């Protein structure tokens, strides 16, 4: 049981380049999220998904796009990277029903450290 897996773990981009961050969860969770963490701050929500084929904007969505084509995967795309997107990105998943009980705690991946130069 791997939990939440993010790839890649590190990446350096040049301004204007594009990339996709991959997130996979094996806990059959309904909800998935992308957060970013900047120095001295807590995590801020970029986008989230409440089910396969659905996505919604979070607190800081500009410059990012997401897709959730399969329940277990949630992709975060940067179309034209900017230095302001230098950050650590975390994927998380939550919400499942087990034996009639709701489980809402979030499980996080290990993060992707992205530097845009």
């Amino acid at each position: 049981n791997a939990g939440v897996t993010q790839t890649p773990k590190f990446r350096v981009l040049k301004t204007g380049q594009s990339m996709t961050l991959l997130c996979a969860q094996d806990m059959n969770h309904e909800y998935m999220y992308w957060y970013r963490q900047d120095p001295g701050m807590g995590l801020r929500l970029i986008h989230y998904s409440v089910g396969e084929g659905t996505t919604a904007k979070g607190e800081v969505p500009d410059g990012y796009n997401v897709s959730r084509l399969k329940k277990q995967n949630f992709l975060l795309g940067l179309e034209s990277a900017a230095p302001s997107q230098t950050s650590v990105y975390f994927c998380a998943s939550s919400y499942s029903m087990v034996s009639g009980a709701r489980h809402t705690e979030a499980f996080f991946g290990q993060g992707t450290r992205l530097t845009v130069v």
Partner: protein
Amino acid sequence: SQQGEEDPQALSIQEGENATMNCSYKTSINNLQWYRQNSGRGLVHLILIRSNEREKHSGRLRVTLDTSKKSSSLLITASRAADTASYFCATSGGYNKLIFGAGTRLAVHP
């Protein structure tokens, strides 16, 4: 925007002492959760307290919630060097979207 403030921003104690961290928030909540983050790693869920609960225990952790003051506290008893980490409170709204505070950096010295 951040949900609120965590206090203190940093805390340094000796092994065996208790550590108390406080969190304030701004909006109504479904529940409040505490997470731990070791340096350079992902966040790990510690404990969840629902809006209709006032206190909850889990091992050496004790969490209180005062919805009238929009505040929560996390107490770690008999701290260990391995408890050294950053601790974040997060409020949960619809679809379990989490809004985090800036965190408390805890250092426990042997």
